[in-house]
């Protein structure tokens, strides 16, 4: 049943999540020959099981704001041009951060200054304006940071859409195929060895998400990536929308400001998502250490629902049903900057990993710059001084 693997390709991309698929997509648009290897199926890990937030970050520095803003802009182009030939359900209704305490308000005011460069209409709202934006919020929410940039994208449709388009443009995508080893020849990548055979390549892109560490070791690199588990539950379709945009609790920022090793679930850390197109809500929580288990733990199931009814008491009045739950893993780096571009000493090996919760938002721009590095020898969409900050060499100093 399985077709033979193509024995040679200009580029082999490892990983069928948003980063690998976007890289394959932009490469095939430039006419490059691409083989993509995915151990499970396209969008079967974090790219198919996330909170669908396509907004600026709720933590992080200028670099993360820069990459997410650029990534969202690429998705706007994809949505406007309808180039995938399918709807990606991009609603562009932005984000509202729910702020309850003076302390949290101060943190978000500082965040607002960082955001204005990329989303000039962001502002703190309160009183009638807050009520008008989200009439069903509990009165415990006293302020909001309203950010109209971006909104919701159905990540599953985006990633499978880009994969199907890349395939149509000539990319070979092999699912249920594992990378076993990478062969080098005098400091240059030579081939990828899979459980279905060998593929010779000039370039190999490591877009393996939390498994990027194992792929890195195959060429002698120790990539500083750790995993974090996010858990989510899904409500039934609601008859009418009870929220108008993505909501996230303000305490999330306090959580993400902590160093990775201290990050734990903070009880108030609940985020809620409007799934506009179909009318389901995604309710989620983050910050647990990763395990192989993709299920939601019973304790978290309870925590998530309790937080949800605290912010949106109407969920209780309507006796909304929970129909589904899922978990995923995000790949974090110590400084919360991603790992992008070539690596000294291993010619042809290109990193596209360590996305720190924001792989989905950054996918469009990361795929684009990686394809530029391969096709033109340098990044054209992002200036070199910014790319430098994502280089692996920063960990070797």
């Amino acid at each position, binding site marked *: *049943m399985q077709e033979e693997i193509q024995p040679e390709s200009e580029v082999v991309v490892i990983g069928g999540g948003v980063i690998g698929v976007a890289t394959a997509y932009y490469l095939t648009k430039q006419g490059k020959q691409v083989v993509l290897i995915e151990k499970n*199926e*396209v*969008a*079967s890990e974090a790219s*198919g099981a996330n909170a669908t937030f396509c907004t600026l970050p709720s933590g992080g520095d200028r670099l993360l704001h820069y990459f997410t803003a650029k990534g969202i802009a690429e998705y706007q182009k994809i949505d406007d041009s309808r180039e995938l030939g399918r709807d990606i359900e991009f609603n562009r209704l932005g984000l509202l951060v729910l702020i309850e305490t003076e302390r949290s308000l101060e943190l978000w005011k500082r965040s607002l200054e960082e955001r204005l460069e990329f989303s000039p209409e962001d502002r703190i709202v309160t009183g009638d304006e807050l009520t008008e934006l989200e009439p069903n919020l509990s009165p415990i929410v006293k302020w909001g940071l309203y950010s109209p940039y971006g909104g919701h994208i159905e990540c*599953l*449709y985006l990633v*499978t859409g880009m*994969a*199907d388009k890349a*395939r*149509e443009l000539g990319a070979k*995508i092999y*699912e249920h195929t594992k990378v076993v080893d990478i062969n080098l020849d005098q400091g240059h990548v030579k081939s990828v060895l899979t459980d279905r055979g060998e593929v010779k390549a000039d370039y190999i892109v490591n877009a393996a998400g939390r498994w990027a560490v194992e792929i890195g070791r195959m060429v002698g690199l120790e990539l500083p990536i750790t995993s974090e588990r996010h858990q989510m539950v*899904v*409500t*039934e*379709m609601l008859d009418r929308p009870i929220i108008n945009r993505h909501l996230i609790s303000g305490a999330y920022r306090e959580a993400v400001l902590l160093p990775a090793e201290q990050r734990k679930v903070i009880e108030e850390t609940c985020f809620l998502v409007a799934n506009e197109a*179909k009318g389901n809500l995604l309710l989620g929580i983050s910050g647990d250490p990763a395990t192989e288990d*993709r*299920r*939601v733990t019973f304790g978290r*199931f*309870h925590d998530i*629902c*309790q937080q*949800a*009814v605290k912010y949106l008491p109407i*969920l*209780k009045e309507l*006796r*909304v*049903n*929970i*129909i*589904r*739950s*899922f978990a995923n893993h995000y790949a974090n780096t110590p400084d919360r900057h991603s790992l992008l571009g070539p690596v000294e000493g291993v010619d042809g090996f290109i990193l596209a990993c360590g996305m720190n919760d924001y792989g989905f938002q950054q996918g469009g721009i990361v795929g684009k710059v990686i394809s530029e590095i391969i096709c033109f020898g340098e990044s054209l969409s992002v200036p070199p001084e910014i790319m430098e900050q994502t280089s692996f060499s920063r960990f070797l100093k």
Partner: protein
Amino acid sequence: MSEEGIICRCEEVTRQEIVAAIRSGARSVSAIKRRTSGGMGLCQGRTCQRLMAQILSEETGIPMSEATQPMTVRPPVRPLPINDIARR
């Protein structure tokens, strides 16, 4: 069955949409689910999973024994009111 026939009632996914997903690259029931949302609704695929497997088998020649590999079962097994879960 007609092309407009509904395969997944909860998410209102038609036969035509399932066939389109397979033709654009889906090779498993889970992959069809990711492209159409079929099987992600109130009943979590109890009815439509087998129908999707049949269409997959017809379209691709993948034997039914392989096509019926179940989607991951995700709790809760039946819909639960948020009130009951949030209560301590």
